[in-house]
């Protein structure tokens, strides 16, 4: 009887909510603990703006994107769908399958608000097709303070050379110097970090954005590849196939010294009750000009003519970009907001550091997927993971990369 009453109350609540505001069905792939806490802040913000949130969570990004594309093709599109800040949804834009959200972008002044790198992805031919929700930085260098202490490393490395020196000391102390998860995408992250820190911003853009053959086959890039390969010698035998969070827990337990991974790793430290600055350190890059690599999530709004759905899409887009939502979301997710004009008091040490770097426009840089098509990025990943795991002549790798990135 009680059950029935509850059910009736629930139905009533849902029914009345439906009448209250625009209903938005949102497809996303945030299913782990911290992630679903983050998406809940988004839903709460949308509900308090008067909307009705219908949650469609699908595990694994690839899977969620495939479902979104299939539903768009099948004529039953969701109100909004998550993609990465990348060229993943460019085909959808070009086929005319997305609704632009130009008036929200103009109202909020996205041109001034958003980093150029993010703008270059969400703005296609003068129209705005995606609402960015956060910025993840994939190439943070994390280190365990306990492991550093055990190896007698007094100060945080300030350059690539000092990093290698620290890795040598860790090895001498009998620890695993570099905690690495040997999966292709993680090798891609390590490579991106090396390209940014050893190669520098200019080389980074020449390779990823311009795909310049001469640069790729040149000496400077060869040095990047050799440093990348050198890092592999600091990993342990159990690395191949390891998940990223298992690698992070090697830092948490003090068995390993360093991991190169995105800022989502903070969630693992937080779960183990470790805090930045005290138990572990985070290095965004080396030097005063080191770039901050931008990766992140956006929501796109599939084409529809239903005025109610369009209203929901507009409301959703404007809610996502409000400062309060941005901060609340990123604090749960481990990312930083896409806008830098927010109050950083509630953020952790690493996020504050990231936000400070982001204020310097010249240090903003996209990750590989922002400049390359998914296909090119995949082909590059195949080559990098082969090089990391096998003994291949570096010249051959240079040639292969040049061929894979040929437009």
């Amino acid at each position, binding site marked *: 009887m009680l059950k029935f009453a509850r059910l009736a109350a629930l139905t009533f609540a849902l029914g009345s909510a439906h009448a209250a505001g625009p209903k938005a069905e949102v497809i996303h792939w945030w299913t782990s603990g911290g992630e679903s806490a983050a998406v809940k802040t988004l839903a709460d913000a949308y509900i308090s703006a008067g909307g009705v949130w219908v949650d469609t969570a699908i595990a694994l990004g690839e899977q969620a994107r495939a479902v979104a594309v299939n539903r768009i093709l099948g004529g039953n599109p969701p109100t909004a769908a998550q993609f990465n800040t990348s060229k993943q949804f460019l085909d959808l834009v070009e086929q005319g399958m997305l609704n632009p959200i130009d008036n929200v972008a103009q109202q909020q002044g996205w041109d001034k608000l958003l980093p150029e790198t993010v703008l270059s992805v969400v703005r296609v031919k003068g129209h705005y097709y995606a609402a960015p929700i956060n910025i993840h930085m994939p190439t943070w260098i994390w280190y365990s303070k306990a492991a550093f202490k055990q190896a007698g490393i007094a100060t945080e490395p300030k350059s690539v050379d000092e990093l290698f020196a620290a890795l040598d000391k860790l090895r001498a102390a009998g620890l695993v110097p570099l905690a690495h998860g040997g999966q292709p995408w993680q090798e891609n992250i390590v490579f991106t970090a090396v390209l940014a820190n050893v190669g520098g911003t200019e080389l980074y853009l020449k390779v990823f954005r311009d795909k310049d053959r001469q640069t790729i086959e040149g000496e400077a890039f060869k040095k990047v590849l050799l440093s990348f390969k050198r890092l592999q010698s600091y990993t342990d035998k159990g690395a*191949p*196939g390891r998940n990223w969070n298992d690698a992070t827990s090697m830092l948490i337990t003090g068995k390993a010294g360093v991991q190169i991974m995105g800022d989502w790793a903070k969630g693992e430290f937080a779960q183990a009750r470790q805090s930045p600055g005290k138990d572990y350190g985070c290095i965004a890059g080396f030097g005063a000009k080191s770039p901050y690599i931008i990766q992140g999530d956006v929501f796109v709004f599939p084409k529809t003519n239903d005025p109610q759905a369009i209203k929901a899409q507009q409301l959703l887009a404007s809610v996502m970009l409000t400062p309060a939502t941005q901060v609340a979301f990123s604090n749960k997710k481990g990312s930083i907001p896409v806008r830098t004009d927010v109050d950083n008091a509630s953020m952790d040490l690493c996020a504050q550091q990231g936000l400070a770097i982001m204020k310097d426009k010249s240090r903003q840089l996209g990750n590989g997927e922002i400049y390359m098509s998914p296909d090119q990025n995949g082909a590059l990943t195949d080559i990098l993971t082969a090089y*990391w795991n096998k003994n291949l002549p570096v010249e051959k790798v240079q040639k292969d990369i040049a061929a894979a990135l040929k437009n």
Partner: protein
Amino acid sequence: MTAPRSWWKVRPGQLSASVALLPLAMIVLVAYAGTVLWSLRVSLTDARTFPSDVYVGLAQYERLFHNERWLLSLNNLALYGLLFIGLCMVVGLLLAVFIDQKVRGEGLLRTVFLYPYAMSFVATGLVWQWLLNPELGLQNAVQTLGFDGVQIDWIVDQDKVMYTIVLATVWQASGFVMALLLAGLRSIDAQIWNAARIDGIPTWQVYVFIVLPMLGESIATVFVLLLTATVKLFDAVVSMTQGGPGNASEVPAKFIMDHLFGRANLALASAGSVVLLLSFLALVAPLFYARSRYQKRVGHP
């Protein structure tokens, strides 16, 4: 002069049967032949996320056969297929012969041998991954027992990782092969065994020279089933190694899946699946041809 009997002229009794089979025929035509033709069409275009109407000839096939990961995948599959089919046949047959000796607890043993096949490989693959992981699994366990020299690290070895996948999948499938071959063994006339016994032929010779040739049909069926399992090898690789270390255990089905969704390259993925289908047909067609010739000769319907 009588007109030749046309294929569409069916006797009244057959009409209802034909109508009943119509949905099945439609499913075969649309869902199988149709999708094969669709893949073939897509593989000739420049499709990315969506199908496209721009034909580019055989460009996707050219790219495919210049792709080192694809070539490596084909190599891996050939190696895997040879070992997997061979070992499954041998182990399955030996198990079947063993059970055929009317051992005690036959029912229990049959269940035990067949059990791996009843479980999803996504789950058992993870267990294999843990067992073979040098830091967590058997190697670690054996070394803590004091056997320091023992190394069980094939799964992280570029050159040996495929063998670990063979090992795990043979463990899974040989019970199934046993069940099929045991059914074949049991259908062999007891008279033959009696005759052999009277003639004083050793048991192993009866198996090798008399029983095995009579199992031809069962073995052919097993072969086709194992070949199918080989071509679609995917879950074992994904759950055990994810294609790694590096690209060392990549297989064609994973290449196709990666390009179909993650890499948004419909055309290249379709080209891959067409190549896979053609090579499968090239292997199976001669077998079926020989089989139908044989059946005609011995007068089966």
